[in-house]
């Protein structure tokens, strides 16, 4: 009986002061609202792109219209708030490496994302010498401004020629390895089109139109009307 009373009293005294939850006692007491307020009041460094538009309107407009419009200003220019407070000029990273972090070719990147081989593209020069970083496609090769009907031979006008009254623009770059003008200078639909290659040998087949004329075995498409055998191979390569 004595033992029972002792245990009863001991356990009672032992247990009563110990609460089931410690969070309201002593050091365990934590002020959640004060802590949330502290976290919520930390300084903000990234100001978001619209903040830049206040002063840099022209760059902002060209950025908004370009393919980089999803890339916020602070990606390349760094966090802007310190600049907005007038304390520092933003750091602009114009290195090839920065462009490469997104555009260098990687297997893991989505195939639809534009990627280039950094070892081949542009040598050692900065990407921004050709590409406008705010509107990257603005610096791309000019597109043909006129209709292409009956004008398959670009170089008959745009190559080396005698002085004309109003000369068409000459090709400003080397033609080595560049036989397909339209793959760069054509409108998007043409650039995307793959020119069919000649699937057979050319031995004894110098005259393409024997087979490929309208009414032939495999006639050329309608938009090829008027072209002679002389020009076929400048676009349709063998193999």
């Amino acid at each position, binding site marked *: *009986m004595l*033992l*029972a009373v002792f*245990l*009863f009293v001991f*356990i*009672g005294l032992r*247990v*009563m002061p*110990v*609460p*089931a*939850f*410690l*969070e309201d006692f002593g*050091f*365990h007491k*934590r*002020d*959640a*609202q004060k*802590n*949330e*307020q*502290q*976290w*919520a*009041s*930390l*300084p*903000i*460094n*990234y100001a*978001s792109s619209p903040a830049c538009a206040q002063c840099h309107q022209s760059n902002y407009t060209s950025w908004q219209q370009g393919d*980089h419009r*999803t*890339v*916020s200003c*602070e*990606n390349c220019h*760094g*966090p802007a708030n310190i600049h907005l407070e007038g304390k520092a000029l933003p750091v602009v990273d114009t290195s090839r*490496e920065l462009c*490469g*972090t*997104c555009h*260098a070719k*990687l*297997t*893991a*990147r*989505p195939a639809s*994302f534009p990627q280039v081989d*950094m070892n081949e593209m542009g040598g050692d020069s900065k990407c921004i010498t050709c590409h406008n970083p705010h509107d990257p496609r603005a610096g791309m090769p000019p597109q043909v401004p006129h209709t292409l009907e009956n004008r398959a031979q670009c170089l008959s006008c745009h190559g080396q020629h005698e002085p004309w009254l109003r000369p068409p623009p000459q090709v400003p770059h080397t033609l080595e390895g560049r036989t397909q003008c339209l793959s760069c200078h054509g409108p998007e639909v043409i650039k995307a089109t793959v020119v069919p290659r000649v699937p057979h040998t050319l031995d004894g087949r110098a005259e393409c139109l024997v087979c490929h004329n309208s009414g032939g075995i495999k006639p050329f498409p309608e938009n090829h009307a008027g072209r002679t055998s002389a020009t076929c191979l400048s676009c349709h390569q063998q193999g």
Partner: protein
Amino acid sequence: MGNKISRRQLIKDGGKTLLGGIFILSVPSLLRSFTRTEEPPNPAAAAQLDQRDWETRYWGFICDTEKCIGCGRCVVACKLENKVPWEPEYNRTWVERYIFTMDGEVFVDSPNAGRDGFTAEPMNLKYQNLDVSKSFFVPKLCNQCDNPPCVTVCPVNATYRTEDGVVLIDQEHCIGCRYCIQACPYGARYVLPEASSTHFGQVRVVDKCTWCYHRISKGLLPACVEICPVGARVFGDLRDPDSPVRKMLSEKRVYVLKPTLGTEPKVYYVGFEKGVQ
């Protein structure tokens, strides 16, 4: 030996003691449970806090692995926004690259936690001769679990889940025991090193992603979401039917990391693949 207790007496007394003990043990918790239900939350104090609306806001996060290009700008933005130490060992967010080969092997890497991107030559040579079947990037960050194991284990009650669904740490309260780091199945927590300059001046305490609590409580996006150039990170209010997160959750098939652990994460992944942990 006069006080000898018979077996019957021992069982009787012992049983009484046990029952009495159990009764007494239950008193404080019973009392507490009564008082608890009577204590209403303080709505006035909550409203003062940036006018946050506890009734409507409950944050959620989506990572789109089909869009992520592994540029690592999110890691940089997070470090600059939150004073996370620049060294690659300390991260609130990081990017992992998964490579699945035709043989069924899985390679995972995260050079410098993705801070400098994945394009540097030395890190890619290792993967040059693999017969890759598929490969993609997986951004990682604190999942702000609805059932957070890190909160359960904290011995000093320094970490907790807020009403708007973010797990925060009271760094003035944290004793740096690292129990939560062991408990987190996603590796989201780290200890602030001695030499770091932190917002609250505390070092050797635990730090982790807060979904940029200072930004989201002012209506801004987390820095990593703000900076992502391809929109691979989406953030918003799970209770707002028009929020980008809710719209995306209803349009896309999503998954969470380690769902079998019952942590109920609030970072959802689009384009999930078996084998991603």
